């Protein structure tokens, strides 16, 4: 063996700190993660049942409220002239934004060879899918006549009408639809080897058959792995532009309009940064809880959490820059309507919402400059929740303040949400968490095969090196 090879081997095997703590072996990783899923239904932890009953109750209350909304019309919301877009649109943007972390982690970090992603990518992707489901619900009920929601798609019909192809609202349908499809595919392809593991370990017939169907005959042969890696790489390539495009299109919903406070070119990058920001905050909230409850601190280590905090610091600062830039352009652009709307945001009737947003989104993440805060689990948990509060308020500020004080001062009004606005928003968390709890219970929440790939033993020269030490 040449000296160069020797050095590389040494640096790989001993130089870097391992990503997964607790010195696990291949079989201990499998055991540790699959045992959560393989638990008998009767032995499901009580906490899971309690959480599930709460979240499913929230979901059912929301369903009842949506039922009434469809029966009675969107008037049950606080929508009024001139604020025709209220919480439903705010929630839509909020949830789509949250959905961005999954693809960023799974696709962009994959292409950049960020190996720490393997511990969090599976449930970040699951979170993405569930967030997009919540997001997709809101435009569907916001149209008021949900039974003709299919008009959003360009289908031939007896009306000889197409949707307006020049409208960003139609682009939204495609952007979010594509995003959902690709996210699902990506998630599922990643799951196949792990589903096969579950199938092979299954002791009862039903589990064997169900996991057997969904693992698509995976045997883990060399050729299969080769195809699999290629497919995963291609999907990552397809998903990467989507991370940027989806929220860009969502921002067009506003930026293409002529309403002051919406009509700005900074919206696409600003929205994308905000989306990644809120998505990581949500991953953080869920990761902190899940690693605690399921004792997965070895897999999701403080180093992983710190990496996420760094990303939140970066994106949070970008968002803060965008806020400042909006104000600067309002002043520098010399448009009095633009100026008045921004002064109103900071000092007008919605200033409480504006300053909540600034505090949560700009000030809170700045503490992550300090290593002490980046590695403090209770603090990052609180921060991640505050950030999502702030990000919700950001969408509220954009949507509602601009609309409620438009060009015609005589129609200015103050938006007041009704119980239906609030209930459906809270209920969407119920739906999100219900789906997430089901995921935790029935699917491996950490990508077993991928985590195995980043432990030191996965290095082909690992054992050679250890043999040398023995001699």
């Amino acid at each position, binding site marked *: 063996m040449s000296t160069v090879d020797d050095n590389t081997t040494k640096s790989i095997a001993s130089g870097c700190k391992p990503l997964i703590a607790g010195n696990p072996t291949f079989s201990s990783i499998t055991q540790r993660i699959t045992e959560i899923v393989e638990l008998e239904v009767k032995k499901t932890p009580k906490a899971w049942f309690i959480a599930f009953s709460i979240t499913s109750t929230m979901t059912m209350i929301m369903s009842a409220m949506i039922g009434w909304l469809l029966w009675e019309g969107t008037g049950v919301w606080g929508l009024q002239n001139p604020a025709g877009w209220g919480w439903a649109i705010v929630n839509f943007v909020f949830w789509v934004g949250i959905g961005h972390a999954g693809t960023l982690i799974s696709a962009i970090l994959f292409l950049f060879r960020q190996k720490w992603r393997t511990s969090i990518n599976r449930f970040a992707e699951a979170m993405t899918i569930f967030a997009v489901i919540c997001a997709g619900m809101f435009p569907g009920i916001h149209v008021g006549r949900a039974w003709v929601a299919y008009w959003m798609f360009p289908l031939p019909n*007896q*009306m*000889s*009408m197409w949707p307006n192809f020049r409208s960003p609202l139609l682009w939204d349908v495609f952007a979010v639809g594509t995003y959902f499809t690709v996210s699902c595919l990506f998630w599922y392809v990643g799951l196949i080897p792990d589903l096969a593991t579950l*199938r092979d370990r299954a002791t009862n017939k039903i589990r064997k*058959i169900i996991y057997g169907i969904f693992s698509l005959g995976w045997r883990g042969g060399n050729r299969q792995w080769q195809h699999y890696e290629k497919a995963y790489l291609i999907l990552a390539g397809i998903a990467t532009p989507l991370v940027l495009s989806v929220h860009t299109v969502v921002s067009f919903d506003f930026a293409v309009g002529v309403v002051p406070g919406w009509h700005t070119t900074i919206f696409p990058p600003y929205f994308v940064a905000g989306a990644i920001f809120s998505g990581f905050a949500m991953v953080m909230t869920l990761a902190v809880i899940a690693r605690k409850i399921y004792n997965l601190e070895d897999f999701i280590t403080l180093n992983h959490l710190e990496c996420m905090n760094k990303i939140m610091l970066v994106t949070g600062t970008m968002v803060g820059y965008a806020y400042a830039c909006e104000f600067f352009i309002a002043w520098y652009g010399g448009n009095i309507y633009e100026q008045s709307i921004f002064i109103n945001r900071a000092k007008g009737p919605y200033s409480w919402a504006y300053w909540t947003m600034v505090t949560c989104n700009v000030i809170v993440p700045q503490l992550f400059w300090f290593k002490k805060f980046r590695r403090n689990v209770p603090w990052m948990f609180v921060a991640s929740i505050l950030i999502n509060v702030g990000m919700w308020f950001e969408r509220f500020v954009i949507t509602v303040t601009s609309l409620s004080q438009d060009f015609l001062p005589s129609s200015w009004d103050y938006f007041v949400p009704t119980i239906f606005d609030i209930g459906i928003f809270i209920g969407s968390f119920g739906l999100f968490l219900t789906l997430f709890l089901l995921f935790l219970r029935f699917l491996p929440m950490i990508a077993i095969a991928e985590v195995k790939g980043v432990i030191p033993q996965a290095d082909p020269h690992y054992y050679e090196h250890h043999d040398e030490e023995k001699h």
Partner: protein
Amino acid sequence: MSQIFPKWTNFLPIAIIAGLIGSGSFAVGVIWYFGSPKFLDVGYRPKQPVPFSHRLHAGELGMDCRYCHASVERSYEANIPPTQTCMNCHAMVLPESEKLQPIRESFKTGNPIKWVRVHKIAEYAYFDHSVHLRAGVGCASCHGKINEMEIVEQKKPLSMGWCLDCHRNPVQHLRDLSNVSVTDMDWVPPSNQSELATRLINEKKLNPPEDCSACHR
């Protein structure tokens, strides 16, 4: 390790995909055909309270549509005639007829006959008869040959797509009103129809609207 699935299950994915494609296209076909206004609405022929024959009045006797539906040229609506219009003639013609008993009854009491509307459009769609007539669209273009119907029935789908077909390309339905009556049921487009229609469109500055608020006001 024994196999979970027997060999024949290899056939299942193909069968399922084929089944989904097949049943999907079948469902689309069924909805496409049986759900269309062409299938659901054309041929609607409600029973009327009085056996009034359009074939007799408009066809054999040759009465003009506008004798009864008098407001059609001035109003958005082609009115259903009041009983008094019937009695203009039937005070003298067949005054004893059994079939006309409800008309005389209505005339005496002042309670209108409850005619059943045949051509319905949705309440959120605005339609104006007068403007179509002025443009030179004949009655028969939308109502069919009323003069040949014993009992009136709906001949056209009256769907939005059907409206738009004509709004987008009205050439085959425009008459030169200086030569032919708008109520002429037997009009067929002459051989030079496209030139004629182009001239009419230019002269009258016809511009059939296609925007939403043209009909959904």
